[in-house]
């Protein structure tokens, strides 16, 4: 048994029934993470995306969770109140089967960081309809030595997956020599 430590778990709850499909969450997220901050309002840079199929009354806000190089079989469907959803509609993985959560120019993964440092995530702040609500809970967990990869590492990982370690380290060596 590892040592127990106190930890704050931050989470966002999504109430699909309250969503009006305005996509303001996408805009706010993109703005907050733009460099310089607020310099872009491009939904394609957001770490939260609306999966919309109006004809099926499908309006689902999905936050990106993790990067993966492999797509899953993604074949399951769920029927809720007579409306059929693909499992992809709820999935936050940054996977190769779709262009969600990737920088439009570079294709690098965009992972939700819960707006670290803000009292409330931006997507929640702008969602006045309360489809997105924020929750903080204190929990006791086993001390976890593992460090989660940050955005840069995720980006590197995706480049490794795309080009292979060898090519990447060659390029890295070449670039470091040039200074």
């Amino acid at each position: 048994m590892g040592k127990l430590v106190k930890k704050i778990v931050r989470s966002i709850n999504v109430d699909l029934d309250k969503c009006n499909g305005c996509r303001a969450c996408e805009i706010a997220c993109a703005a907050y993470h733009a460099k310089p901050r607020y310099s872009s309002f491009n939904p394609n840079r957001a770490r939260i995306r609306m999966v919309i199929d109006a004809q099926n009354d499908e309006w689902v806000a999905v936050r990106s969770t993790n990067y993966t190089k492999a797509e899953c079989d993604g074949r399951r469907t769920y029927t809720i109140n007579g409306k059929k959803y693909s499992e992809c509609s709820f999935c936050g993985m940054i996977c190769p089967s779709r262009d969600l959560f990737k920088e439009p120019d570079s294709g690098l993964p965009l992972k939700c960081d819960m707006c670290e440092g803000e009292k409330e995530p931006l997507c929640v702040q702008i969602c006045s309809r309360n489809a997105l609500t924020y929750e903080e809970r204190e929990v006791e967990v086993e001390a976890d030595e593992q460090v989660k990869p940050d955005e840069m590492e995720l980006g590197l990982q995706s480049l490794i997956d795309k080009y292979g370690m060898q090519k990447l380290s060659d390029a890295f060596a070449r670039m470091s020599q040039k200074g």
Partner: protein
Amino acid sequence: MRYAETGYNLEVDLSRGNIEKVETDRRLTELHLGGNGTAAKIIWDRVPPEVEAFSPDNLLIFSAGLLVGTPVPGCNRTMVDTISPQTNFFSHSIFGGYFGPELKHAGYDKIVIRGKAPDLVYLWINNDKVEIRDASHLKGKGAQETAAIIKEELKDPRIQVAAIGLAGENRLFMASIEHVNASAARGVGSVMGDKRLKAIAVRGTKDLQVANPEELFKLCLKHSQDMHASPFVGDLMAIEWNDAFHHDNFAWGNARVRRKGFWTQEIEDRWKEYTLKIRDRLQGCYNCPKNCHLVVKPPGRQRYILKCFGKGTWHMAAFKEIDFTFDILALSQEYGVDSYAAPQVIAFAIELYEAGILTDKDLPDFPSDSGDRFYYLLEKLVRREGIGDVLANGVYRAARQIGKGAEEYDHNTIKKFEQVPIKLGRVNYPYYLMYCTSDKMAINQTEGSYPQDPIADPVERQKFVDEWIAAPERFKRYFMEWEPRTNPSVEASINICDWNETMHYVDDATGLCAFCSSFRGQFGGGTAYHIYNIPAFINLAAGMNIDADDLWQIARRNRNLVRAINVSRGLRRADEKPPEDHWKIREPEKEKELLDEYYKFKGWTQDGIPSKATLDKLGLGYVAEEFIRRGILTGNEDNLYTETPCYSDEKQKENMQFSALRKSSEFTLTEYLKKNK
């Protein structure tokens, strides 16, 4: 550096299959802002008055407003401008949803379409990659069906589509352009169909620059939260259950019968229950916290999204109930017909049948139930089959084509255009002016900033005025003087008409939704956007430096340019009349005075033509020159428009940079109308 706008238009020539990305002139933004302002400039420059609607030389212009795609909440409108086959004048239409922002992110402010494709095509705009694609497989398909097929074949659910249905393909004068939860009305679908353009599909992933991103974003975040909390923003008729306003006051059938007392608690409960049964959710447009749309799935029909007063027009025209509307809309929106003009032309045909002017020969196997008759005629109409081919040209033309006294039944059009069905008692002065002089052909595109009705209680009236941030001071005076069952003075009426129309021109240039702005002042006075706070958004987003007076001047310029286009196409005072029996009791002398004084105030001739002095002062000297060349003006007209400053001692510029929304917790439209109607 261009801010808020992309600085590029997409020019598409469907005859030659040519596509070009063209940089635009930043000075035009300063003069006209964008949207229908810059579209009017293009039409003035490139579509001479000899060019008819169905000529390949007519242009069909989609414009995302200046602030569309920026974080300004509730700003998502795409304006569709062209020459209308129905009126032969400038046709103005708008739709919300998601199309405009996507277009901006694809790198364009406008799509300018000329020519005619040899066969049915659709346009696919994927950032810089633009193609004209075959659409033969989409022929006859419904509007949303088309959108779904396109998204599927291009393998991207995030594509935004604007499409026509069968009505547009068959060039019905009342054909709309449909997009997810919105539609461009007033006949622009017929021009799209004439160009053999089934749809436009857009996908954009580029950035859009604004001048002061941080300040703008923070302001917009706060404004969006305020808008959500405000009952003075959005379409309350979508969410309140009592609709006595339309059902007791508007006219049923072919704009004929007023059914006072129709609305009862029993109707309200029953309609509410039915609506809740088939309604999946309330829904909004891009970057707007309101919920003006109903996502519905009536039994046996596909799901669709309903908006605005389409919720009432169909069953009122057919003397039916709300279930009828929900059901027929599932068809009519897929066919792509306007919910104002189409029900009216059908009700008109039914009257002609009852009067024996149309017979069983024109309408073989015509059903007896009014609802069945609607379905019957809708099918004929969208296929231009038999009598449908005549009705498809709108009430005005159909009446003349049919003859035999049918003209008598065309009693609700202005400038050949179907009007909202309202029949009232005594002439209303500001409304008289709005109906007569609007170049937008529709009262709901003209009214909206000044309340429709006075407040009887002097204490409440004073309170209303005290909290009325949106109003320039003179309107507070007019409102304080306004007693129930009286008309405002001539001076007040002219100013009211002027303010109302000005705010629409502001919205239609910036892309702001009228339900957050120009249309919502009339019910409660607390609209989210007004002449005083809009400049702050424009300045932060577009890097301009304008105040309320500058904004008013730009709107005035756009108003005069649209008027000039119509004047060059023959519009004169004789055309400026309200629908025939709109008011039972008329005041011809007063009406003449109103029109005389309005023209003077606008700086127009007594024939409704902008004078040389007015045009010159607005920087539209080129219009004056053309008018003189064509003999429309002599060049000696020196009647200048009346200046109406927005700032005063009570409203100093420094304090009006950004004024918050009027607060209210308990406002409902139902109560408001009950009290003041």
